């Protein structure tokens, strides 16, 4: 494992920005800021004509690290520990599970909890539990 620093202030600030974006999206076009929903609907079949807007939203997320790099002079490079097979399996499971459960960390974990949705509370509890169990298994048992 790679050790990381406890960053409560930056994390709270970043979290607040995520919340601000979720609120802004609701104010702008009345949608839940569910990243998996936006990403999955970049793929056909298309049920509506919102493709350009979804592409713009996802493009904003994709380009954000470059803006941080421009502002600070150093790119925020993610530290990826997982091997290629685990990234492949993990990606398949994350993509499948997010669509099957109608949401991910942003849709259920942020927007759903903020709406006090029982479905999102169930979803968030379940994915936190299986994620914690998976990390326990891979780091401490296997």
């Amino acid at each position, binding site marked *: 494992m790679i050790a990381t620093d406890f960053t409560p202030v930056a994390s709270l600030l970043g979290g607040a920005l995520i919340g601000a*974006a979720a609120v802004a999206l609701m104010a702008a*076009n009345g949608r839940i800021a569910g990243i998996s929903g936006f990403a999955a609907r970049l793929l056909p079949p298309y049920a509506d004509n919102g493709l350009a807007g979804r592409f713009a939203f996802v493009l904003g997320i994709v380009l954000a690290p470059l803006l941080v790099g421009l502002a600070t002079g150093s790119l925020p490079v993610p530290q990826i520990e997982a091997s290629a097979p685990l990234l492949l399996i993990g990606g398949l499971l994350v993509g499948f599970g997010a669509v099957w459960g109608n949401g991910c960390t942003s849709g259920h974990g942020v927007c759903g909890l903020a709406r006090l949705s029982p479905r999102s509370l169930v979803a968030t509890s379940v994915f936190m539990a299986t994620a914690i169990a998976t990390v*326990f298994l891979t780091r401490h048992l296997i």
Partner: protein
Amino acid sequence: MVILAQFVIGLVLGLGLVIAGMSNPAKVLNFLDLAAIPTGGWDASLAFVLGGAVVVTFIGYRLVLRRDRPIFDSRFHLPTSTAIDTRILVGPAIFGIGWGLAGFCPGPALTALTTGGPPAWLFLAAMFAGMAGARWLAAREPAPSPVPHRS
């Protein structure tokens, strides 16, 4: 105009993910590693990300949803389903396993497209394949019969 707005909102969301440290899988896995609490290896930061995001969204939604309609649409599109069916259990269970294996969920994976190199591209390709598979399967399944939700 609505497309530009969505671009800027995506940019702010991505900035939030990066500043929060959520876009770093090592940080995510260290948060999920509760067994590291006694040894001091646990990184509690992500609780602050979720806390900050939920509080701001909770307050903001209450202000925004008081309006008659959003700026660029005729109505708010809020989820109406309240059913606790098998999909709301199975989907997140699968999602959590993948999240715990790789340390990426969809938003952070998207931010890693520009900065994460081939490992991130592999995860993203697999994620979109998983999404396509779930949509394909969902289209072939009969709609899940809603469980009566009464208390």
